[in-house]
């Protein structure tokens, strides 16, 4: 049976709200619409109670305590608050921070702002699988280093970071560690103690919660991390993030965290098998396909492949029955190749011809089998048109054309 088209295979971009999450949210959009800061009546109490339940649910997902969760509008805001807030608060310690070239733009752009403010930022390189060696982090630390910001898992390739190792290094050297866990949350087990994280960002809409809601974990003990607020106003969230709480969104994030905690192991096993089926199905039938990402230390739902001798935009158009991402996840309309793939040393041509398949809870085996056939057909059609492929078949290096 042909699945309904187009097939969504872009769950690293966003996810649909899980039914169980939606059910939990609905009362707070309807009858229970109170403002949690209305301390004088039942509407406020009910909203406040729901927010605190959600705080516990999110804390449980990452091994934190509820007092360490600060609600935000999403991971971008969390990253801003973590980096700008920590750098501002601890600027007397030094003016240096460390991050990685493959971070999301929500970290890299904040780092660029810090550079303009006079900070020195070290952008660590990765190997050809996108793997960051923890030893590089240690080597980059100076007596001026205030903060390390390293993502838990990469959004484009799914490659994980050695967080526990980095956490130990940070602790040993007395440097704060922030991790953008937007992609990892709900996909792999995470514990802030095991990771040694002092600050951790996550977003509801990547784990089957609603858009517009996220949180920042801020460590309260050993060490107690303090941040300079970036949004000022009524003093919500212990003064760290003013603004009326997005109660339905927060309830949704809490419910999503609880669902993820329960379903994570089963989801990982099922999606890992489907991802491997997709990978094997495509690569066993098509030559000259290059996987991007670490072969094993990688999110179980993510497959990033580059198809040699075809052009990315044409490939995506041929693949219109699949909702997938190409070379650059956030700026797909431009020809600028992905900074992540570039950092891994992937050539511009192969970065341009990269497709990211990311599977999610609703993904079925029928969808995977359809995607395999659709991808093979699209690549074969474009290669039949490609003069570069013809030259390569004849044993001529197409680079000679350039």
């Amino acid at each position, binding site marked *: 049976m042909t699945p309904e088209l187009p097939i969504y295979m872009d769950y690293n971009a966003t996810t649909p709200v899980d039914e169980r999450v939606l059910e939990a949210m609905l009362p707070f959009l309807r009858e229970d619409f109170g403002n949690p800061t209305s301390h004088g009546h039942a509407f406020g109490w009910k909203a406040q109670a729901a927010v605190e339940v959600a705080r516990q649910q999110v804390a449980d997902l990452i091994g934190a305590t509820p007092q360490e969760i600060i609600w935000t509008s999403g991971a971008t805001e969390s990253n801003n608050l973590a980096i700008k807030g920590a750098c501002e608060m601890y600027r007397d310690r030094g003016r240096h921070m460390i991050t990685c070239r493959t971070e999301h733009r929500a970290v890299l752009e904040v780092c660029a702002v810090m550079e303009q403010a006079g900070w020195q930022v070290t952008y660590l390189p990765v190997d050809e699988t996108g793997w960051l060696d923890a030893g590089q982090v240690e080597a980059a630390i100076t007596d001026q280093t205030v903060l390390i910001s390293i993502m838990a898992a990469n959004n484009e390739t799914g490659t994980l970071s050695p967080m526990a190792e980095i956490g130990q290094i940070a602790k040993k050297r007395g440097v704060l560690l922030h991790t953008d866990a937007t992609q990892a949350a709900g996909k792999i087990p995470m514990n802030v103690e095991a990771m040694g994280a002092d600050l951790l960002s996550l977003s509801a809409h990547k784990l089957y919660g609603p858009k517009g809601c996220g949180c920042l974990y801020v460590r309260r003990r050993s060490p107690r991390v303090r941040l300079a607020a970036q949004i000022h106003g009524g003093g919500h969230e212990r003064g760290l993030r003013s603004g009326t709480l997005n109660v339905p969104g927060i309830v949704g994030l809490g419910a999503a965290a609880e669902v993820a905690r329960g379903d994570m192991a089963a989801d990982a096993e099922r999606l890992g098998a489907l991802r491997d089926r997709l990978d094997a199905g495509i690569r066993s039938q098509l030559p000259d396909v290059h996987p991007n990402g670490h072969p094993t230390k990688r999110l179980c739902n993510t497959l990033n492949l580059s198809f040699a*001798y*075809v*052009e990315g*935009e*044409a490939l995506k*158009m041929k693949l219109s029955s699949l909702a997938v991402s190409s070379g650059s996840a956030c700026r797909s309309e431009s*020809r600028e190749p992905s900074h992540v793939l570039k950092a891994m040393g992937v050539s*511009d*041509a192969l970065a*341009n011809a990269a497709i990211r398949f990311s599977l999610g809870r609703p993904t079925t085996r029928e969808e995977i089998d359809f995607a395999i056939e659709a991808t093979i057909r699209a690549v074969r059609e474009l290669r*039949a*048109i*490609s*003069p*570069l*492929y*013809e030259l390569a078949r004849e044993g001529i290096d*197409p680079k000679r*054309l*350039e």
Partner: protein
Amino acid sequence: MEPNHSPEFMEHFARPRNVGSLDRRSRRVGTGTATVSECGDVMRLQIEVDPQGRISRAMFKTFGCSAAIAAGSVTTEWLRGRNVDEAESFTGDYVTERLSLPPDKQHSSHLAQDAVLQAIADWKHTRCRRGQPAS
């Protein structure tokens, strides 16, 4: 935003005409290979000219975006049956208009124009080198 391509564009992208290769050693065949250095697009376009100077066949292959593929298709359609002298007046504007290309896709029109002019030049050069009398 969903790209708003014309039906003509989609038709020639989905089912490009005249994809393939001609025997480049044939003295009747002229081959042009054009590239766009900014984006790396490549179009190889070949014409086969009969003794009367008429283009009997035109074939292309493209490595490039959807517009470059559709451009090769409509360009080879246009060339077929035309006299070489007439074909020399070919410009990318034909491709732009026929496919309703937006400005950011018009490099594909230039790519096709370059490929046509190179193919004609190659045909002339080949014929001259091999001592063929003018038809």
